């Protein structure tokens, strides 16, 4: 039996119908399945007679639509009750789904994934990037080669190891008659040793300090430009007139330092000396435990004396601190949004007369629990969404990404918190469903003589909400009016359903 025949067999078709059956409400399920099985028999005979071709599976797939219709239109469905208009469960579940979806996207996008995952480096708190302008210029090469060379010998009391790299666009021969431009960093041969990043050494007998330069590629560059050639490692490649031997490939997530780099040429000090001494690059160092005063892990800096008594100040930003930056931005924008929130919407939730004799404490507590849950779900939703926006197309160290995250996070928090408060004010304090049937009450021209505003009601009959059009000294905020049990017959489901209320 071929696969096609198997797919269009009666047994598979019956299985599809049985898979759709659980969607049908239990009470109607047996009859529904019998009807579809009865029709299936005729469709199958029609197919065998050659009039319908391969429509057997298509016929059975329609059962899902039919079953879903029955489920959706079942008046006793708990799912229907759960998702009916204005339900707090629907609101909470929607927020949860959005938060989970934004987190899932965050893990799909390589840039935001690297923000979420822990640092790939050993002791990132001891690894520092040395730059001339602190945070603002740590994504730019600011250290001159001659400074690095002097620090190699003079900073032994501060750092155990120190490395230099300088990214540049270079033409790389990727095939015998084809070159392409890649971002290649010339680096000292101890760069990956400091980072403690493992890479596959293709030529174990070939030490990194051999006469020819060593080349390390990122996995994406290896795939894209060398078509995942398994025999590439150990080969010599021409890069901007320089011969370099491929010694390894590292995963893309292993590089989280400034510079969007495709490959690194690791060279010893002798070869690096060929570069102009004034050329600038990045410097990475591993801090000695006793190198800086205790408690200075947040702000470390060093000064370098210059000619004529001048002093240059260099900031040492730890990689752990860099990794925390997106979360620090998140907290900062949350604080800003909380400060700006009163300018966009009133903070009070309204006046709700206390009725301790009638309302159980669980119902009163549920109202506050609901707003806490909403805010608790808004926090991850905005955080992950802002990361998705910021790092979808920009590298981790990009200042543009940080600005995008900051703006998206601030606006996201401001409008989400505003919505949370407004949504809470439009809900019944008893059943937490959204209030319906807004009605204008009073006349605007008589505002100082009588009450004028909007009245909303709970469709379950728990009460009425009065919102003043213009806040006055005697009616400054919205007021809730509880309805007693004598009103309940007007709001029962049996009365509401024919009237068209959901």
């Amino acid at each position, binding site marked *: 039996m071929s696969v096609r025949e198997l797919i269009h067999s009666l047994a598979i078709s019956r299985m599809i119908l049985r898979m759709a059956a659980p969607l049908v409400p239990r009470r109607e399920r047996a009859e529904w399945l*019998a*009807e579809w*099985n*009865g*029709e299936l*028999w*005729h*469709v199958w005979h*029609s197919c065998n007679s050659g009039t319908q071709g391969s429509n057997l599976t*298509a*016929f*059975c*797939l*329609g*059962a*899902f*639509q*039919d079953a879903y*219709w*029955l489920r959706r*239109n079942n008046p006793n469905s708990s799912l229907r009750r759960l998702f009916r208009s204005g339900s707090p469960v629907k609101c909470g579940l929607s927020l949860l789904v959005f938060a989970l979806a934004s987190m899932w996207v965050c893990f799909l996008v390589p840039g935001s994934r690297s923000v979420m995952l822990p640092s790939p480096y050993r002791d990132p708190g001891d690894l520092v990037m040395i730059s001339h302008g602190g945070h603002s210029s740590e994504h730019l090469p600011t250290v001159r080669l001659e400074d690095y060379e002097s620090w190699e010998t003079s900073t032994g009391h501060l750092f155990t190891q120190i490395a230099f790299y300088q990214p540049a666009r270079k033409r790389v021969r990727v095939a015998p008659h084809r070159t392409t431009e890649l971002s290649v960093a010339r680096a000292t041969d101890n760069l990956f040793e400091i980072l403690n990043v493992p890479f596959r050494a293709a030529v174990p007998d070939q030490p990194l300090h051999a006469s020819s330069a060593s080349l390390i590629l990122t996995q994406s560059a290896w795939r894209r430009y060398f078509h995942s050639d398994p025999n590439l490692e150990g080969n010599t490649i021409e890069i901007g007139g320089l011969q370099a031997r491929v010694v390894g490939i590292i995963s893309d997530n292993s590089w989280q330092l400034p510079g969007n780099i495709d490959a690194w040429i690791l060279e010893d000090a002798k070869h690096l000396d060929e570069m102009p001494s004034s050329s600038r690059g990045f410097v990475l160092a591993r801090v000695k435990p006793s190198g800086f005063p205790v408690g200075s892990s947040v702000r470390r800096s060093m000064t370098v004396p210059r000619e004529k008594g001048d002093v240059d100040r260099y900031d040492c930003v730890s990689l752990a601190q860099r990794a925390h930056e997106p979360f620090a931005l998140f907290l900062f924008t949350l604080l800003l949004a909380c400060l700006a929130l009163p300018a966009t919407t009133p903070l009070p939730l309204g006046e709700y007369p206390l009725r301790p004799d009638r309302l159980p404490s669980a119902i009163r507590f549920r109202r506050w629990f609901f707003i806490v849950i909403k805010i608790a779900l808004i926090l991850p939703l905005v955080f992950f969404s802002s990361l998705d926006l910021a790092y979808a197309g920009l590298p981790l160290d990009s200042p543009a990404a940080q600005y995008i995250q900051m703006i998206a996070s601030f606006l996201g928090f401001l409008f989400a918190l505003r919505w949370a408060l407004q949504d809470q004010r439009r809900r019944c304090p008893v059943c937490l469903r959204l209030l319906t049937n807004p009605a204008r009450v009073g006349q605007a021209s008589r505002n100082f003589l009588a009450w004028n505003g909007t009245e909303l009601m709970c469709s379950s009959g728990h009460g009425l909400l009065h919102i003043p059009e213009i806040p006055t000294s005697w009616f400054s905020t919205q007021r809730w009016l509880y309805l007693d049990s004598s009103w309940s017959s007007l709001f029962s489901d049996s009365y509401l359903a024919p009237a068209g209320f959901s």
Partner: protein
Amino acid sequence: MPAMAIEPKLSHTAAMILQAIHAGQVYGFSVMEMTGLPSGTVYPAMRRLERDGMIVSKWEQQSIADAEQRPLRKYYRVTRTGQSALEAIHKRYPLLEKLIPSPEVKRV
């Protein structure tokens, strides 16, 4: 004072299905064959028509299915409400009757 007729709001697809049942295609599969609509459209539409009282369903007799050695089938027929709805539908969709002729028209 004559009773005011309320014209049912039926889509063209639902109208086609109602007309097909009226024309004698009493099973879901035969309605599909007549209208060319897929099962995922025909069966939910028939449920809606049944809910609105325009058609009723009934299981055929067991003896008929046993004689033909096949499973039981459910058949549908148009109610009086459905009939009056069809009259209004024919005014709204004049070509519908030409597409799926009614039994009376067939005899002519």
